[in-house]
């Protein structure tokens, strides 16, 4: 077989890639036929529900399960914790009750008699002084980088301090600010959970997961079996955002209950449990001082930030501060705050949204202080960046975004806009960077002698359009339509493919499916070459036929070509290893976003008017789903910028707004107009496929905060910018 060129067709030649293809499973989803884990109900199943700790911190004095066992319909009570155990956060599960019905399970949970000793809790992560007083802080790293080196005789720390002070003295503009972003919950619409069933010693888990190929092991290890005896299935998922990679102790417990009772068990977290224990994003609060030259180019950055990722402290990684903008001289220091909250989980672009909101707000305040447009300050500071995208791309993206926003015409200096009644408007910018490397992925392609094509890959559909993208890549390769391809994903018995995290899926499946289908095609070419009196390497598959390159008259229909396979289907596989160099995929994207808001100064209510997102992602596989992804990210960004946060009650340590009525998310009327621009000039397309799932969710916090600051002339320091904070900032600004 001749060497196969693993490349993409040019933009002009591509017949599927780069053309919008509606989701192949769209109809199924919209009519409710698609089965999410929550929809899986097995014959004879038990429904399980669990009791969680009502407090932020407490000790179990005693547990009495007898009253629960007496409830009609209750079949089994599984203890997850025992008397004497200390519970470190609100919602931590204590016991699981399995019953014949949801009602009986709920009643059983309510009947469990647990005595608690309430212990002091600390959840107010923003309050660094209090955390220090209670000895709940940890060192979370830091870094100093200065252009000048200390002399041999200098004490390093003294030199650094002196050098930093010198740089500030030399600065023409100095900004000091405080910024932050509260912890938020992943708030998956479909909560975490599974329906599990044993067949002898084999476990089948219908599990809401972003990691079909990788959770079998989690179940196996916890249940003391081997992964070959576990099958994990997830065909559709109602949100994960980085919180659904593991088997999770509650699903393992459900498997235990199932084993014990000999019946399938369904366990899904309740809404408040979903918010309380199934994933949150660390908070971050920062004190910043920056110094800039007369043009507003920052020369020195000095910051200390803190926040919490749960009982261990941690918080936002110091490695991404200052964010994208990286002056030649900087000092950054981080402190972790230990709180009585469950450990955080990866949330769409871990660390980046917070870092962006803690950095680019300060850059915007520099523009405010200088009375110049944030656009100019952002543009000028592209001189000094640390990013996996180039300054040149950011410049081009800024220009496009400004045009789409009509920035120049609409801009006014901070706080100098004309008020309409109590309403003022403003605009803000932010920019971001991300990797999006292709994950490990294997795929098998099967071509049937009757022309049917199937693909097999243990990846998962997060709602992003992965299933459709798999079909598109295969269809492109075979000269077929995406609907011609039967895609099999969502099961751990399929060829292993990486977890969907880090925006690595589109690269992963594009790699594996392109390679496997090119391999299959080469075999098919061998098989039909004779019929076309040509050599295999002279053939191409285009528009439903296989034909001789340069001699299109010599062609044969796809189906007929497949007939040459004889009786047996043809199979070919391929794998991609994360990090391997490839012309099909690469990594590193940027992106620029702009927000236009209106603020009611009397009530502190902020409303979105318009939002522009310009995003590069290398080669765009499916424009329509890429756009959807960006719309979704922007909406999620608006959510953490204006509405949602975890509120913990200082007295009980409880996550007090863990019900949907209190955990605010934007509604459709709250998001304003969103304009998405896919940035795909040839130099970017040449880089191949790069992930896009996370990057567009990074900028909204900073962009919206900057827009509000531009409207009001004062900074509302901490996200979300809820009405009371806006009012507080206005009051403080006046004083």
């Amino acid at each position, binding site marked *: 077989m001749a060497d196969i060129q693993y490349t993409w067709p040019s933009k002009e030649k591509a017949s599927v890639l780069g053309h919008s293809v509606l989701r192949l499973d769209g109809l199924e989803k919209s009519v409710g036929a698609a089965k999410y884990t929550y929809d899986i109900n097995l014959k004879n199943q038990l429904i399980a529900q669990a009791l969680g700790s*009502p407090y932020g911190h407490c000790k179990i004095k005693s547990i009495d399960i007898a009253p629960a066992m007496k409830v*009609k*319909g209750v079949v089994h009570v599984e203890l997850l914790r025992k008397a004497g155990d200390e519970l470190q956060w609100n919602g931590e599960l204590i016991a699981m009750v399995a019953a014949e019905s*949801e*009602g*009986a399970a*709920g*009643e059983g949970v*309510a009947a469990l008699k647990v005595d608690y000793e309430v212990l002091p809790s600390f959840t107010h992560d923003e309050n660094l002084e209090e955390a220090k007083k209670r000895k709940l802080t940890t060192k979370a790293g830091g870094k100093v980088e200065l252009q000048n080196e200390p002399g041999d005789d200098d004490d390093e720390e003294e030199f650094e301090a002196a050098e930093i002070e010198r740089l500030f003295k030399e600065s023409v503009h100095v900004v000091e600010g405080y910024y932050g972003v509260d912890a938020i919950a992943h708030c998956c619409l479909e909560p975490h959970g599974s329906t599990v069933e044993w067949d002898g010693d084999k476990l089948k888990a219908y599990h809401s997961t972003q990691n079909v190929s990788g959770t079998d092991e989690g179940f196996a290890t916890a249940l003391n079996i081997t992964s070959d005896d576990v099958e994990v299935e997830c065909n559709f998922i109602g949100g994960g955002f980085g919180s659904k990679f593991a088997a999770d102790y509650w699903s393992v417990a459900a498997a235990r209950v199932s084993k014990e009772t000999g019946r399938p068990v369904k366990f899904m977290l309740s809404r*408040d449990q979903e918010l309380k224990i199934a994933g949150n994003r660390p908070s971050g609060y920062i004190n910043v001082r920056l110094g800039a030259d007369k043009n507003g180019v920052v020369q020195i950055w000095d910051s200390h930030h803190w926040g919490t990722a749960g009982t261990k402290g941690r918080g936002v990684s110091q490695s991404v501060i200052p964010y994208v903008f990286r002056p030649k001289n900087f000092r950054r220091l981080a402190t972790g705050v230990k709180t009585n909250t469950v450990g955080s989980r990866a949330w769409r672009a871990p660390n980046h949204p917070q870092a962006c909101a803690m950095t680019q707000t300060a850059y915007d305040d520099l523009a405010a202080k200088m009375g110049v447009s944030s656009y100019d300050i952002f543009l000028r500071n592209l001189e000094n960046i640390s990013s996996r995208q180039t300054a040149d791309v950011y410049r081009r993206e800024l220009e496009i975004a400004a045009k789409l926003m009509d920035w120049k015409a609409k801009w006014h200096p901070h706080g100098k806009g004309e008020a*309409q*009644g*109590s*309403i003022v408007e403003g605009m803000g910018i932010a920019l971001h960077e991300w990797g999006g490397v292709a994950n490990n992925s294997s795929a098998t392609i099967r071509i049937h002698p009757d022309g049917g094509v199937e693909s097999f890959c243990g990846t998962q559909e997060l709602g992003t359009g992965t299933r459709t993208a798999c079909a598109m890549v295969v269809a492109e390769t075979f000269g077929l339509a995406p609907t011609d391809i039967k895609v099999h994903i969502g099961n751990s018995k399929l060829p292993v493919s990486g977890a969907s995290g880090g925006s690595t899926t589109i690269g992963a499946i594009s790699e594996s499916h392109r390679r496997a289908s090119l391999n299959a095609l080469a075999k098919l070419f061998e098989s039909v070459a004779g019929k076309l009196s040509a050599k295999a390497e002279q053939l191409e598959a285009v528009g439903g036929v296989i034909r001789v390159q340069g001699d299109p008259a010599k062609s044969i229909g796809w189906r007929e070509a497949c007939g040459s396979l004889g009786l047996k289907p043809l199979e070919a596989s391929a794998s991609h290893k994360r990090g391997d160099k490839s012309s099909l995929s690469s990594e590193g994207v940027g992106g620029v976003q702009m927000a236009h808001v*209106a603020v*009611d100064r*009397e*009530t*502190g*209510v902020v*409303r979105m008017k318009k939002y522009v997102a310009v995003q590069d992602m290398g080669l765009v596989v499916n424009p329509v789903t890429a756009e959807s992804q960006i719309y979704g990210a922007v909406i999620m960004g608006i959510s953490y910028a*204006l*509405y949602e946060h975890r*509120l*913990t*009650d*200082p*007295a*009980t340590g*409880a996550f*007090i*707004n*863990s*019900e949907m*009525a*209190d955990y*605010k998310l*934007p*509604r*459709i*009327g*709250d998001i304003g107009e969103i304009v998405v621009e896919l940035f795909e000039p040839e130099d970017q397309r040449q880089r191949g496929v790069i992930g896009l799932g996370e990057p567009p969710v990074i900028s909204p916090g900073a962009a919206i905060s900057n827009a509000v600051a531009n409207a009001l002339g004062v900074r509302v320091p901490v996200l979300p910018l*809820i*009405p*009371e904070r806006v*009012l*507080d900032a206005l009051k403080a600004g006046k004083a």
Partner: protein
Amino acid sequence: MKAFDYAAPRTESQVVDLLSPQAGHTEIIAGGTDLMGLMRSMVVRPDRVVNIMEVESLRELGPDDQGAIRIGAAVHLDELLSIPYLENYPALGQALRGMNSMQLQAQGTVGGDICVQPRCWFYRSGLSSLVDAQGVIEQGDHRNHAIFGNAGPAKFVSGSRLAPALIALEAEVRLLGPQPDEQRWIPLADLYRIPRLQGQRHTTLEAGQFVTHIRLPAVDLAQGGATSGAYEVRHGEGPDYPLAAAAVKLSFSGSTNGVATISDARVVLGQVAPTPWFSEEARRALIGRVVTPQIAEEAGEAAVLRATPLARNRAKVQHAKVAVKRAVLLAAGLETGGF
């Protein structure tokens, strides 16, 4: 959810028969949009649920002989929205539209709205009872809690979206029970109370008693009538609870330089106290005046003059003030100047 008996009676007296004389044992379900959530989280655990949606007389909607509007408790909110005479009661229309939720409007009922269980995240998550003798709320995060009527152990706020407007418009409610033929009309304002003792609820309804109808007095437009307006300060577009709400009814007599002066005003705030909250101070600030943005501002300030915010709910004072001001402006047909 606890297992329960379910009854769907056809007549008002059957409803009364099915209601337990003991509090907490039976609950009425109308649209169920609030009750179902509370039952799922086991905050409310009735043995029996009585569905009133099949009682014909509770679906009544229209003017009576005297021109008053009779609204059955089981009338859906969107039915109310579509009646032609709503325009005589602008405050009610504004409150209804403010919900911004097709689902709540289509499923929720007038009776369910005015009887809706209070808004308090401690109560709704099981951390405190409505009457918080332990002081959990006082020490806790009470940013959404009462700024009026909060001296006792009840700190929650009345959540009803329609009550401020209905009370401003002088609505009455008909109560039936506990005896099958025991009925009386009371001002809607008297349906609410601030509970002081454990086990007391937020309404004066006795066990075995329920709301059958609401009556809105006729508006005599020919006589100059009265104007009304309602304004809610909302974080987002809805359907979540407003941060503060106010409804105002203005009556006019005579004129100052040809402009009508206010002869009486009913100013009722919502989401700020354990009951809908009358503001006598705002009323006084309005009587004898001509509505201007300045007078509206003064009414807002007067309304919150005697607010008693807790440690963490000061923003509500500002929101209440703005709600009153804007409700007055809307009642007078002026621009609010805000969203």
